[in-house]
């Protein structure tokens, strides 16, 4: 098994999840990396991704486990040689067991820059420790929910926010959060949104998934 960390940025952020799976399959085939296939009538490559992300989100912290005997030391170079623009393998490691990213990674970190947000530091700091009810539209229905329990932290420096939100079974989407901030502040210019890390929870501590790549 190989676990890999990859980034999906620029125009590649518009590739939907299922298509990303196919992109990976073709990349690995081109790179001549032998991957185990599932049994049955419709065999497919054994690839296990961390949870899908909303379309259009730039990210430098996605993970995938691949059933292969390939050497991790060569993997990064080979993958990057054969993958399309905007996708890049950042690190890889050989592991015996599938860590099951989709199951364990339940918290994500985002870097968000909104022009003029530095003037709203009291609003941002005031979000902690009180209900944060957002009305949003999901699948054509108007819904309303208190997202405060899904917020682990929001740290502000000037126009920048570093946000850590729940992203597993309970998920605070970055775009719902940003829309609400824009609504509350009447600001309009979102300069950057980048997903920067994913965490799993152990003993109530947040542990960066990158730890799985260390020796």
């Amino acid at each position, binding site marked *: 098994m190989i676990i890999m960390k990859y980034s999906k940025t*620029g*125009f*590649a952020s*518009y*590739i*939907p999840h*299922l*298509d990303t799976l*196919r*992109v990976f*399959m*073709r*990349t*690995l*085939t*081109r790179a001549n990396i032998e991957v185990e296939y599932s049994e049955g*009538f*419709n065999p497919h490559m054994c690839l296990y991704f961390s949870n899908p992300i909303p*379309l*259009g989100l730039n990210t430098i912290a996605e993970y995938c486990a691949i059933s292969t005997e390939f050497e991790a030391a060569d993997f990064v170079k080979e993958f990057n040689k*054969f*993958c*399309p*623009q*905007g996708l890049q393998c950042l690190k890889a490691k050989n592991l015996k067991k599938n860590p099951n990213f989709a199951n364990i990674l339940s918290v994500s970190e985002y870097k968000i820059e909104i022009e003029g947000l530095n003037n709203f530091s009291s609003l941002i700091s005031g979000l902690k420790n009180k209900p944060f009810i957002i009305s949003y539209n999901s699948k054509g229905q108007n819904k309303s929910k208190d997202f405060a329990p899904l917020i682990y932290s929001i740290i502000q420096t000037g126009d920048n926010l570093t946000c850590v939100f729940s992203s597993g079974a309970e998920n605070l989407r970055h775009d719902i959060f940003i829309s609400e901030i824009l609504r509350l502040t009447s600001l309009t210019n979102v300069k950057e949104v980048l997903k920067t890390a994913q965490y799993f929870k152990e003993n109530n501590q947040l542990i960066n998934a990158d730890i799985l790549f260390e020796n």
Partner: protein
Amino acid sequence: MDKLNKILQNVNKPARYTGGEYNTPKMDKPFSASVCLCFPDIYEVAMSNLGLKILYNILNNQKNIICERCFAPFPDMGQQLKENDIPLFSLERKVPLKKFDILGISLQYEMCYTSILYMMSLAKIPFYAACRDESYPLIIGGGPGSLNPEPVADFFDLFIIGEAEENLLEVVNLYEKYKKTEFTKTEFLKQAAKITGVYVPQFAKVSYFPDGKIEKTESGYKIQKSIIKDLDNVYYPVSPLVPNIEIVHDRNVLELFRGCTRGCRFCQAGMASRPVRYKSVRNLTNLCEQLSKNTGYLETSLSSLSTGDYPQLKELIDSIKNNDYCKNLKLQLPSLRADSFLGEYLSESRKSSLTFAPEAGSQRLRDVINKNITKDDIISCLTAAFEKGFSSVKLYFMIGLPTETEQDVKEILEIVNLAKSLYKKYKKSKKELKITVSISTFVPKPFTPFQYEKFNEKSQIERMQEILRSGLKQKNVSFSYNDYNLSRLEAVFSRGDRRLSKVIETAFNDGCKFDGWLEFFKYPLWEKAFEKNGLNMEFYLQEKSEEEILPWDFIDIGVTKNFLTTECQKAKLNKTTNNCQNGCLNCGAKKLGECFAFLEKQ
């Protein structure tokens, strides 16, 4: 670029407009000529087109030429472009279409005409060639629709009729030469017109009789369709772009041969692509290997007008299976005739559905259209399919064919029942048989023996559709058919003349686009467009006499008019014509290049 990202967040399937595919050629090289290949449909359809892949790679392989793509934005994106004042741009470098030296627009079929105008309007380029000076890109038309380019002739500077692998490059190089000088478009076009297959509409004035028929086409020249004589040695792209999103034909394509020997009388492609030329097994195997190495696709389609007729099909499949890189490929064999079913090669495919096109229900009508398939052929191929484990069948038929009667249509129902009884007898699984019956409406096409036939009235067509609809109200049988009005418009433009460009312009300005998509098709606006321009649809739909000058008569496709009319006469006598693999019938195509139709089947 920021503006673009904001827009992409608001449209469906934004990856349609971003580019970034694997195998994108170098876009930062210095160049002296820029071309944008435009396809008037959405990304998923455009990227499935083989012609586009071939020309894109031929042009980008030239040191001095850069070639990009642009496809029709879906209306939601078109709206965003308009609202944000962003002119239509290329996928690769996001350059506005207006800034290119040349736009090459592919004419796929008649209902894409308004989509062409849609792209031009979003690109802020005037529709009419006469309104564009040297500061605008040269606009070239090509593809199967250019066999009768007249309805859109006024919009284009020139057409390349036929196979464009060599000629498009010649035209681009000629343009590059002229660009370096102070030239007028007319001077350039005069030179370009000397290249085989190039048609410059402005040099051919057409005049009409009072009743609308063509009186004459001036300048009296004939445009000879261009062909690649040596198909086995022509360039074929082995590193095509690999889309990041799912497209209609998401696999490698191997083109086995061009032309067709069957001579079905309704089929334009079969007649117009002659003479028959094959690629060799050795070459195809090599191409297959390179394609799978360079793309990572595991499925490859063996493509042609009638794949079962490729003389060394078994040898080809064996050769591919014996190749180390290709042995695990899934091979798809589309366009198989009911008399050449190859069950042994299809059992590996996951698909459990097989497609056949008998086209007509009765033997009599099949003889009229020269679809030489007997009831026994149908029985044996369905039997073989069911014995192999197939439990799903798709059957294609046409209604509105010349000499058709209710009885002919009712016999379609008999074929469906035949399939059901054969399945009961030979089926291999407990699964219930699924039958899909797809009925299209016959449209008379230029350069076919039926090019003079009329297009049937609404009452006639809808009566046949009703017979089928009520007869096919059975479990596990699904039935689809064409919208009559859409087929009617297709028939008008199929045999249309120059005067229709005004109608297309009016219809577009009134809101028509993506007409081939039923959800956007607005027939009443088209009716009004004809009215506003004083033209009558009926004129184009009625039967034509052999004395009439047809709008496409100035094009020489090889096959002679005499051959076509003789075939039509035979049709009316229920007489068939043999497959020309069994002996040359002198259709006329071989004057363009050597025809290999009667290569011995091994």
